[in-house]
């Protein structure tokens, strides 16, 4: 199913459209209903935060939107493509082209150098090794890691590792960036720098950035914020943080 020209009331096209999505882990008495009919939208050009207490279902919601976890019921459209009913191989293809990931623990491969780590999504997308590494090196330079391309992640601080992870998420120019607790493993100052960097380099008019967090220090960077509780969306804060301060930016 597609949404055609889905947009919100303000004319911002929708990037992600989620309706009545359910997800249950386990069976019978051991069943955990992680998502209980979630309705949720994310728009192009915005940085959206999903917040809520631990166990409220925000990471599960992020996983099903990213196509890394199958959902039980409801509809999810990402850039007008319905994930419901897509074969696993097609979901993988879709994810490969359209989604960039930033993880809480960075998930950089320790035995690869920074350039190789960043070039991975390009190589998965079929770009030649040399071209991929060239582009990866250029992006690392842009993110303030000039001359560190041959280092391995183990030689970097947490903040530097997250910069590399950001580069890896952006290098193949995906339209959806998924960030799972990107600052929770960082101190306050580094976390602030990372969020500023993320806002600066990731946020674009044709891209949507979704951040799951319960780090209230970074709420101010959100354009909108969705609050979850007990597997449902409780509230959506429109015109939040920078969005409020910087108008329609």
């Amino acid at each position: 199913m597609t949404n055609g020209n889905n947009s919100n009331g303000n004319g911002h096209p929708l990037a992600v459209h989620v309706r009545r999505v359910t997800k249950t882990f386990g069976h019978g008495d051991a069943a955990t209903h992680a998502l209980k009919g979630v309705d949720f939208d994310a728009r192009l050009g915005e940085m959206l935060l999903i917040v809520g207490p631990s166990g409220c279902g925000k990471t599960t919601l992020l996983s099903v939107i990213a196509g890394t976890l199958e959902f039980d019921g409801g509809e999810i459209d990402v850039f007008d493509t319905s994930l419901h009913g897509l074969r696993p191989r097609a979901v993988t293809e879709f994810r490969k082209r359209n989604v960039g990931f930033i993880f809480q623990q960075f998930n950089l491969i320790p035995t690869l150098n920074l350039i190789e780590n960043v070039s991975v999504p390009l190589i998965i997308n079929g770009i030649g090794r040399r071209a991929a590494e060239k582009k990866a090196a250029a992006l690392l330079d842009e993110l303030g890691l000039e001359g560190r391309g041959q280092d391995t992640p183990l030689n970097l601080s947490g903040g530097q590792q997250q910069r590399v992870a950001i580069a890896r998420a952006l290098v193949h120019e995906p339209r959806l960036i998924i960030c799972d607790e990107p600052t929770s493993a960082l101190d306050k100052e580094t976390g602030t720098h990372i969020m500023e960097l993320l806002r600066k380099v990731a946020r674009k008019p044709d891209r949507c950035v979704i951040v799951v967090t319960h780090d209230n220090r970074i709420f101010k960077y959100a354009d909108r914020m969705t609050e979850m509780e007990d597997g449902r969306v409780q509230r959506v804060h429109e015109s939040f943080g920078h969005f409020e301060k910087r108008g329609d930016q």
Partner: protein
Amino acid sequence: MYHIALKMLIGDRAKYIMLIGGLTFAALLMTQQSAVFFGLLSWTTSHLRNMRAAIWVVDAKVEQVNEVKAMRDTDVSRVRSVTGVAWAVPLQAAILQSKLSDGNFKPIMIIGLDSTTLVGRPSRMIAGRLEDVRLPNSVIIDDLAVQRLSVGRPRPLQVGDTFEINDKEARIVGICKADRHFFGYPYVFTTYDQALQFSPKSRKMLSMVLAEPAPGWTAERAARQIEKETGFSQARGTGLRAFTEDEFFWSTIWWYFRNTGIPASFGTTILLGFFVGIAVCGQTFYSFVLENLKHLGALKAMGASNGLLSRMLMLQALTVGVIGYGIGVGLTVLFGLLVIGKGMPPFLMPWQLPVATFGVILVICVVAALLGIRKVWTLEPAVVFRG
């Protein structure tokens, strides 16, 4: 992605070395033990290589070449009279005692050849002349005999020297190269008549008859004809049994399989090598996959397909397999080079052996890789979002 797979593998030094070590050990154990086993088996058939003949005629109850059941002298004539036999000559093979200079005794394998034709003669002479073996009390000894029978002498035995066989003087007229016998006895070649002189007297002295098929007859057909015309029956123990060289070779090999614990003993060690390889490689590789599960999950989340990840794991497993195999077989060859000159332990590595070992190592690697691949196929990429 394959260079990334290799860097992931090599980057984990401990597991990389462990995998290569396990596979090296498995390849070494399987190849080296098999080579020693084949070497030992080749010793059981040394008669066939040291005394070449198309047809070997023996007593009806004989099953393998090292088994001597004496026949009557007239049996040579019986074989000669068979249609399809061009010629037949007698052969005497017996284990006798030779006396060393220091007074000790050493067993030897005396081979008595037909004095006219010298059929069954050694093919590689190191010193002396083959024809001189027809001189009275003359023998040709192999290089092992030089080594074994020179004990107590100021210098190794050489042409012209004498020693005692069964209290009779034997003069060395030649030294030859011969394949080593299973029992480790040195070969001493002489003529049939002289061999009878060296041997203790008994009613029947003929050990074997060597024969050649007539023109237009194959060795196999002539052998069957000998059995037919002499009334061969293994069950009744009558007539004469005839083998072609190839038949006698395999009959001997199977006899040792059936009647000795050698195959079981070596087979157990070789199987052990296989299972150690499976266990070490499988467990280490599986643990390598488990440790990299987060990274593999991240790659999967980023769009790497199950097929791509499977090929990466297969490449990693095969890489350590090829390296481990190379080192293992290399060490086996080194072992072979070290022992072949000394002649102990037996060592024979036909080309089929490293090929077979390579196949087995591939099986080990594929099994190890499949354990990891199964894990990766069932891996939810969402695992990367869980702490």
